[in-house]
């Protein structure tokens, strides 16, 4: 449950990071503000199921993957192999964090995720 909230929070984070960079009309700024509020709402909910440090670091990591990829696809940033290397390192780290937090929960005896 916690991880779904992290992913949704990060998706809204990607929207507002793009909004802060590219918003020009009042509606786009309003949407950016809504995305900020929603991303923190889901981040806080994630913290109810996962250690807050885990959900925050994963939130930052997934958000960075999303903004880096969208910058390359839609906003004219050049593709570079080093970016791909960092993205794979990020995915490995997030997968590791997912595994580590699952194990920690089981050790506490509360089970599940």
């Amino acid at each position: 449950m916690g991880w779904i909230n992290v992913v949704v929070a990060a998706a809204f984070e990607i929207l507002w990071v793009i909004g802060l960079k590219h918003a020009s009309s009042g509606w786009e700024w309003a949407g950016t503000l809504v995305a900020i509020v929603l991303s923190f709402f889901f981040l806080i909910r994630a913290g109810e199921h996962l250690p807050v440090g885990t959900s925050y670091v994963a939130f930052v990591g997934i958000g960075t993957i999303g903004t880096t990829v969208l910058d390359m696809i839609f906003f004219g940033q050049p593709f570079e192999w080093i970016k791909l290397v960092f993205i794979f390192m990020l995915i490995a780290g997030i997968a590791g964090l997912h595994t580590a937090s699952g194990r920690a929960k089981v050790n506490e005896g509360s089970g599940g995720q």
Partner: protein
Amino acid sequence: MTWLYLIGAGIFEMIGVSMINEWIQKRVVWPLLLIAAGFGASFFLLSLAMQTLPMGTAYAVWTGIGATGSALFGMLWYKEPANTGRLISIALILASVVGLKLIAP
């Protein structure tokens, strides 16, 4: 001065993240207000730093201080797990984020 802005931004980010823990434990209103105030002050100082530093550099230092500090603070103060797998994963994520921000324009 720019570096003071960035250090301040990182500290406010740590406060914002810590207040998520306080809200979850206490369920009272003040941590929610401090989450908003902490992140608000953090983004404001970050934007001040970005006036003189390249955006990627400012963002990398901000993440380096704020997110790393928040993760460490969570382990030390809120007793979040600090097993090897978690430490390596967090280090890998934060190093990659800082790397990506540093190569961004």
